[in-house]
């Protein structure tokens, strides 16, 4: 993905100069290493801050919800699928977005890297296949494949499914990926162990709702956890309330989640809540043959009734 930056700047500059769009949503360098932040360029001069590397894991579809102006967005595979979902759910019109597609080779996991080196990380640079991490005492070289976010190493849709223009040629998709090995392991547990597993998984949660805020699917004007009349779920740290929040949030993403990993990336305590969304993704895949955000012409699995929908659980 080295070299995408120049191309992105060129495309963004052109779009803004020709007034094709009013704004370009992309990434700029963050104030800390491995923390790129979203950037909204509205003038041709502002595109110089735009950039691209393996730290652009935030899902930019999140910034398109209910936009009125014409927006160009830099979209990786998962972003593009969420844009499709947005269009299907009438959150933005197709002719309002100009999609600049980015073939993606995965984003790196800042938590993994922080755990693999000692001391504060001062600088992270990359080539096509390697990541160089510089701390005060040492420089460490990693293969990119060993420090990928889990969702990226499991990704089977790296190329944008929808685009108006591409930044580079499509990359090769990964095949032979077992996306659900960890989910199957949980499914095989005894009920009591399952309960304990999720108690342990969710116990660090501080209810900051960063996972919800980072998620492009969570655009309700008032989220069920914020509502006070009626109050659906307690707002404290009670394990039952924490569990209710995480499971219900996952359910709201059923058949819509593209496993972009924004929730896990945003979590300050490193909870892998993608286990929940991926279980639902797995169910959708197995029972309805549905994958979210792949086409503009197909209605989502939970949106249609078919006579052969599985109903064996209803007695």
């Amino acid at each position: 993905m080295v070299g995408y930056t120049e191309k992105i700047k060129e495309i963004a500059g052109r779009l803004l100069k020709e007034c094709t769009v009013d704004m370009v949503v992309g990434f700029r360098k963050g104030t800390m290493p491995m923390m790129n932040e979203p950037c909204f360029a509205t003038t041709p001069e502002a595109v110089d801050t735009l950039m691209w590397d393996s730290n652009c894991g935030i899902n930019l579809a999140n910034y398109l919800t209910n936009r009125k102006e014409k927006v160009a967005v830099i979209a990786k595979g998962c972003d593009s699928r969420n844009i499709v979902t947005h269009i299907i759910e009438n959150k933005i019109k197709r002719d309002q977005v100009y999609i600049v597609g980015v073939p993606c080779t995965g984003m790196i996991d800042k938590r993994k890297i922080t755990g693999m080196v000692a001391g504060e990380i001062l600088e992270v640079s990359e080539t096509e296949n390697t990541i160089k991490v510089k701390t005060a005492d040492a420089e460490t070289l990693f293969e990119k494949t060993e420090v990928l976010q889990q969702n990226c190493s499991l990704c089977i849709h790296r190329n944008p499914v929808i685009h108006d223009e591409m930044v580079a040629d499509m990359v090769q998709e990964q095949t032979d990926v077992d996306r659900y090995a960890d989910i199957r392991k949980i499914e095989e547990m005894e009920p009591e162990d399952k309960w304990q597993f999720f108690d342990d998984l969710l116990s660090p949660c501080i209810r900051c709702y960063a996972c919800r805020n980072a998620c492009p699917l969570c655009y309700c004007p008032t989220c069920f956890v914020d509502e006070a009349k009626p109050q659906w779920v307690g707002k404290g740290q009670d394990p039952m309330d924490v569990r209710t929040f995480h499971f219900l949030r996952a359910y709201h993403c059923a058949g819509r989640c593209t496993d972009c990993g924004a929730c896990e990336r945003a979590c300050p305590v490193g909870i892998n809540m993608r286990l929940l969304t991926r279980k639902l993704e797995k169910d959708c895949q197995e029972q309805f043959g549905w994958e979210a955000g792949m086409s503009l012409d197909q209605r989502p699995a939970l949106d249609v009734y078919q006579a052969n929908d599985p109903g064996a659980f209803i007695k």
Partner: protein
Amino acid sequence: MELMGVEPDRLHFSWISSAESTKFVNVVKEVTEKVKAIGPNNHFIKDTAKVA
């Protein structure tokens, strides 16, 4: 729910018309039996807030 650790026999789904009284009775019997067999659910309990 099953993934979360709720026993499969604790949650039942059924579609019963208002004209199907026999089916209703049978389903209720079956559900009660199955739930009784696995015993009380101790998970969905929230302690009331303790006052210091």
